[in-house]
């Protein structure tokens, strides 16, 4: 295969990954690494570098749209970014030390979890949550626009949320994914932050978290311009397109189909990791 053919094929596949990722809300990053390493036979370290850069592009590209809705909480985001960026540094450093087989196995397990969480129904926001001393001191409580005016919320369990965020950052740095699902889990389930606030704030945090490990990857020589070019442009174009047609598409079947694809990729990654092919 020539470089031109390879770039066109990888660009087109990345566009589809970005499009489906945006439509299902699961993000394209989670399928990029398996796609590149299993089908295009790219070394998994190059694939992770390319995915990480694309995650920054999609997260930052979508931020403007999310911010206008007025749901994201910049204080929660910034406070938790201390955890995610520290975790990302740890993950990026681990990526250089552990074998590619181990990375493939961890990746397979994380894919299975994402498929599971994509099928899980959203939790309903609890009202009347009491004030938490630490959250109040940290000024994390906020409000968001609701049908009947502004609705305020109180944040809970700050240390637990912080710890999960550290883990989400480490996975992001190790595997080159946004780990958006785990960030939402920390905010929505552990810290009792309303779902809409959690998802938009998580999107804001993904770019900063990925940037923290991307610097390490760049310095290590894991970011190959020839590979990242079609991946980043394809995913960005796909996700921008996806954001435009989001309202018109029935996402139920798409989500189901996408989770089946994720499970198949998970099995393939586990098999290749355990048999030492990756």
């Amino acid at each position, binding site marked *: *295969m*020539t*470089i031109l*053919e*390879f*770039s066109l094929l990888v660009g087109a596949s990345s566009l589809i990954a970005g499009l489906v990722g945006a439509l299902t809300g699961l993000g394209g990053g989670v399928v990029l690494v398996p796609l590149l390493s299993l089908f*295009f*036979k790219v*070394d998994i*370290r*190059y694939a992770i570098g390319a995915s990480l*850069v694309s995650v*920054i*592009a999609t*997260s*930052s*590209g979508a*931020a*403007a*749209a*999310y*911010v*206008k809705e*007025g749901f*994201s909480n*910049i204080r929660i985001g*910034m*406070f938790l*970014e*201390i955890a995610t*960026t*520290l975790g*990302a*540094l740890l993950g*990026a450093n681990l990526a250089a030390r552990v074998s590619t087989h181990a990375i493939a196995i961890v990746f397979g397990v994380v894919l299975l979890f994402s498929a599971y969480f994509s099928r899980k129904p959203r939790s309903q926001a609890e009202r009347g949550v009491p004030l938490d001393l630490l959250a109040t001191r*940290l*000024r994390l*409580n*906020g409000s968001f626009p609701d049908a009947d005016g502004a609705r*305020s919320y109180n944040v809970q369990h700050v240390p637990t949320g912080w710890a999960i965020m550290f883990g989400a950052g480490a996975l992001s740095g190790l595997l080159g994914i946004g780990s958006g699902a785990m960030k939402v889990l920390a905010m929505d389930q552990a810290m009792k932050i309303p779902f809409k606030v959690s998802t938009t704030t998580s999107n804001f945090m993904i*770019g*900063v978290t990925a*940037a923290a*490990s991307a*610097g*390490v990857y*760049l*310095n*290590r*020589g*894991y*970011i*190959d*311009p*020839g590979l*990242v*070019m079609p991946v*980043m*442009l394809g995913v*960005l174009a796909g996700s921008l397109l996806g954001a435009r047609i989001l309202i018109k598409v029935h996402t139920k079947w798409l989500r189901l189909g996408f989770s089946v694809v994720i499970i198949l990729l998970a099995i393939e990654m586990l098999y290749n990791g355990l048999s030492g092919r990756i």
Partner: protein
Amino acid sequence: MLPERSWTDQRIENLLGNLLRAGVLFSALVVSVGGVIYLLRHGHSPVDFRVFRGEPADLRDVRGIIRDTLKLRGRGIIQLGLLLLIATPVARVALSIFGFAKERDRMYVVFTLIVFSILLYSLIGSA
């Protein structure tokens, strides 16, 4: 929360959101220019990403990338675009420091400075 403060928060966030989008689109443009040069020069060579070798030293740090860009090397220009992309969220964090300082929120100025230092360490200090 005071309505005045939440209004300022919202205004800062709108500004930051637009900055992020502009940064991403600009870096995508730079990557595309580099990509066209790269494909015109090397498009017909065989591809090889199977074996991990790591990038050459000039594509790993800011100075090397700028040197390659000035020589109009396709791979150097793509890498410059990627560097701009990585710098976009870092710029957003840097601007948040001023936003919180303007609101006289000392605690969050400190938090934001911590995040900013971690990002700078990753980009510059981790080599």
